[in-house]
């Protein structure tokens, strides 16, 4: 049915978000926990090690885990308070069914009955409209065992080509650029190389708020003499004390990288030996950036010419360096080109593949790295394989014991799935670990599309905003209620350990998926008894592939505090080996299964590729009608679409409601004072929030954090323009106008800050 069953305010009343604070046993200082479970945070890609205190099957608190080498006990506020998700009043303890007659719009349903209904609807829709009429949207905060299983579920069990995941909204630009340049998609260096770099270039990464522990690494480099360059339209905490701040105009990153490369060429700040020996395509690239004089670069990027020259000089002449970027340059309709530009200046410097010389995108989600490796992407098969590559299809068909022709072909990206739902081509949806109503751009359109679904089943542990539209909601597991591996942002495969059992009727996600498969009578390959069994198959499925996990075991992970892939189980001659993993990629003498010794990069000739990356302005540039740029992003106390963190009281108190950040000169022009209600409007929607007047943002740009839902959602305004290669949406720039609001918005009297 997929319309909301009743007034959303009533659904919120029933299912939240409500705030949980520390109470009861968790406040007691006399209780000794039964055990401390070593595991990792459930939130971002830094995947800080943490110990959870367990008493009577409840997580009552945390204890730092100082031995875990990446974060050494450090945590951000989200990790500290994550345990408040356990025993939460909003926790789904039963399956739910859409029920307009219920005061909250949903009523409890027996688990088996719910599974039976889900299976029957999937069967009905596929029989009436074909296999592809049912789609799957999944996410990258699931363990790799689950991401692997979701891919298999879609392709082997449902036999639909329409599966995609929420990483489409975050990592796909970096992934595509990395594959084009290096032939493989993983951080090139472990973070232990950061403190040894003499120049650190940070583009489009609000490090202190979105990857907090990375702050310590960057500033340790500075203690060792490094210069820090930060490129951002806002002065974020990492930018506040940096050595060189480049206040870039949103959407102009490739112009900057092209301009820097041109200065490197002009001044011969190039590693000719590296370019000659280890790359192809430099001449064409050099030709293409000739037009990017410092003056032109300054004009297009909005950065003063002297800053560009300084940045290029520091970068060009550095002895060691590290370039890191994040969504700021990737969330664009030219996100792939922006990343290619970043990689171009790294390759031109030759500083990669050795100590203190590095490059990485900072992956955002817990398993953003692993979640884009094992087949839940529309065009991907396990091991980082390509669903259209005949050899790869045969390899996986063999592992899955199916006929290759039965393996579906590539589907479409997550936004295109929504469009196909809108067009009526897709009639049914199963979603897990994804809240598209909040996290996709132009979300009025997303809502409209969802309402057309014939049948929608959501798996979650809270009723997220998208699940308001579900016909059935199945009660899934919190991260601490299951076990499995994730690949954190460095490419280090680590183990998430189970601390407590699922409450009520809730159960592990992999069990729910297999229960659906069983009820459908399609159990082939969907009968795992444990995450360990899934992991063993995943290891076998990745053997010999680019993303090789075959030498990784749970025991090795525990012993080594994580294992960086590739970790093969055999050497190039096929002899079994005990490999300890690959912290640093692209080392000069390294071997990989694509180059087979020809060189360190993952192409048959072993050489990295320079990529020509022409500049184009953002899809929706400013004009007389909408004269300001809107850029969106995050705050440190909230995570993604807020389904979890908007239910944690102390985190909401830190930053309760979204604000429109604007410069005093802009605010003065608009007659807006700090704290006034202001309305931001784009061609797609409006959003009224309180203004936050600060000097730390470009005066031609406003910023809104996107973690809130409904009428507070920044994505009511954003544009669904996508990069043609990666299909990532252009969250970081669209055109808006801002006016002082005549009155407080309706929601101010109806909703609590977190709702």
């Amino acid at each position, binding site marked *: 049915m997929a319309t909301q069953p009743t007034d959303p305010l009533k659904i919120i009343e029933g299912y939240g978000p409500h705030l949980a*604070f*520390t109470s009861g046993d*968790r406040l007691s*200082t006399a209780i000794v926990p039964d055990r401390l479970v070593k595991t990792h945070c459930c939130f971002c890609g830094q995947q800080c090690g943490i110990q959870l205190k367990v008493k009577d099957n409840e997580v009552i*608190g*945390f204890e*730092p885990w*100082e031995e875990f080498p990446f974060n050494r006990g*450090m*945590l*951000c*506020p989200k990790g*500290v*308070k994550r345990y408040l998700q356990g025993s939460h009043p909003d926790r789904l303890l039963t399956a739910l069914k859409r029920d307009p007659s219920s005061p909250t719009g949903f009523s409890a349903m027996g688990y088996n009955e719910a599974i039976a209904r889900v299976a029957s609807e999937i069967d009905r829709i596929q029989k009436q409209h074909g296999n592809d009429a049912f789609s799957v949207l999944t996410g990258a905060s699931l363990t790799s065992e689950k991401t692997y299983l979701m891919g298999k579920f879609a392709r082997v069990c449902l036999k639909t080509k329409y599966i995609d995941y929420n990483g489409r909204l975050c990592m796909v630009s970096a992934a595509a650029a990395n594959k084009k340049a290096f032939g493989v998609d993983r951080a090139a260096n472990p973070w232990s190389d950061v403190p040894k770099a003499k120049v650190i270039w940070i583009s489009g990464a609000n490090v*202190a*708020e979105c990857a*907090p*522990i990375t*702050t*310590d690494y960057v*500033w340790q480099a*500075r*203690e*060792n003499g490094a210069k820090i360059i930060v490129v951002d339209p806002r*002065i*974020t*905490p*990492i930018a*506040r*004390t*940096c*050595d060189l*701040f480049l*206040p870039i105009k949103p959407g102009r990153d490739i112009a900057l990288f092209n301009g820097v490369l041109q200065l490197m060429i002009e001044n011969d700040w190039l590693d000719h030996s590296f370019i000659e020996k280890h790359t192809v395509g430099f001449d064409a690239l050099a030709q293409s950036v000739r037009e990017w004089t410092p003056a032109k670069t300054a004009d297009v990027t909005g950065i*003063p010419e*002297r*800053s560009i020259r*300084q940045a290029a000089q520091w970068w060009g002449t550095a002895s060691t360096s590290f370039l890191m970027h994040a969504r700021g340059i990737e969330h664009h309709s030219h996100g792939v080109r922006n990343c290619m530009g970043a990689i171009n200046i790294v390759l031109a410097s030759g500083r990669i593949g050795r100590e203190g010389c590095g490059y990485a995108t900072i992956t955002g989600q817990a398993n953003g790295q692993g979640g884009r490796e094992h087949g839940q992407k529309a065009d991907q098969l396990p091991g980082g394989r390509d669903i259209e590559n005949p050899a790869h299809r045969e390899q996986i068909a063999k592992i899955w014991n199916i006929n290759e022709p039965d393996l579906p072909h590539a589907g479409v990206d997550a936004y295109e799935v929504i469009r196909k739902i809108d067009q009526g081509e897709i009639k049914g949806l199963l979603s897990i670990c994804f809240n598209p109503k909040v996290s996709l751009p132009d979300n009025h359109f997303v809502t409209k599309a969802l309402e057309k679904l014939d049948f929608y089943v959501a798996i979650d542990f809270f009723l997220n905003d998208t699940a308001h539209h579900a016909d059935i909601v199945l009660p899934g597991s919190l991260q601490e209620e299951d076990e499995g591996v994730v690949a954190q942002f460095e490419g280090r495969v680590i183990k998430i350990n189970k601390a407590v059992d699922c409450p009520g009727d809730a159960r592990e996600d992999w069990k729910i998926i297999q229960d659906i498969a069983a009820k459908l009578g399609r159990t082939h390959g969907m009968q795992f008894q444990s995450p360990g069994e899934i992991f063993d198959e995943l290891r076998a499925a990745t053997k010999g592939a680019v993303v090789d996990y075959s030498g990784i075991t749970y025991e090795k992970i525990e012993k080594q505090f994580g294992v960086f892939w590739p970790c093969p189980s055999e050497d190039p001659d096929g002899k079994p080996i005990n490999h300890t993993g690959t912290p640093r990629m692209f080392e000069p003498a390294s071997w990989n299964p694509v180059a087979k010794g020809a060189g360190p990069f993952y192409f048959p000739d072993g050489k990295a590729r320079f990529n020509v990356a022409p500049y184009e302005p953002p899809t929706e540039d400013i004009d007389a009608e909408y*004269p*300001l*740029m809107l850029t969106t992003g995050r705050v*440190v*106390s909230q995570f993604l679409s807020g389904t979890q963190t908007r239910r944690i009281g*102390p985190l909401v108190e*830190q930053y309760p409601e979204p604000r429109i950040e604007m*410069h*005093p*000169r*802009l605010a003065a*022009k608009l007659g807006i004072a*700090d704290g006034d209600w202001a309305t931001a409007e784009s061609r797609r929607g409006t959003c009224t929030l309180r203004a936050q*007047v*600060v*000097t*730390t*943002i*470009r*005066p*031609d740009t406003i910023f809104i954090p996107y973690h809130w839902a409904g009428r507070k959602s920044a994505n009511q305004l954003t544009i669904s323009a996508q990069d043609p290669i990666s299909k990532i949406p252009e969250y970081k720039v669209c055109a808006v*106008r801002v006016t002082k609001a005549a009155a407080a918005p309706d929601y101010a009297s109806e909703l609590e800050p977190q709702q």
Partner: protein
Amino acid sequence: MRVNWSRSSNESQPSKVFIMPVPEHLNFYIDPNRCIGCQACVQACTECDTHKGESMIHLEYVDRGESVQTVPVVCMHCDQPTCAEVCPADAIKRTEDGVVQSARKPRCIACGNCVIGCPFGVPEINIEQQLMKKCDMCYDRSSVGKKPMCTTVCPSQALFFGTRQEIELLRPRSMPVNEFRFGRQSITTRVSMMVPRQSHEPARYVDVTAAMDERPASRHVSLTVIDDPFAEVQTG
């Protein structure tokens, strides 16, 4: 606090051996310039066993309109704590290891003298409990060989707990100072503040009131190329 007594064979002259719960060589260093305002310290502080649910650390924006700079306020654990000296009920004790404990019931009468007296603005009165509460360097942790919560979790290590050798190795650009001048009053503390290391003359104390009447520059510290990065940007 644990005290080990070792008695000599001569009963009339017992000798005492103190083992400091918080060892002398372990120190608390705070570098306000490294604070990123994430509040990991505030949240972790509420998880400490001495005062679960309440944070003893405050985090303040200096002036959010002008800068994202934040400063964490932790108890400086003064050698001669003003709070203890002005307490009429003798409710605030300083243990031999230099940690100034939080006020104790039944003595504390919540008069607020300590709140007014503390030059660093640390103590706060919990009205409901009628009790002053403040940071005690996570005494339940630091007295048994663990680090205070805030210093463990701080993602930028603005709050650091360790030896002086460790911090000197890690922070060539700054140096610890533990003497503070407030006008004519000089205060030495157990907690040290990191100040930029001047090559020509090491800083001996922080003169807190020296710049009291100056307006802080918002971005003066390290943006070496230009003062206002947005000076040339037009509004829409």
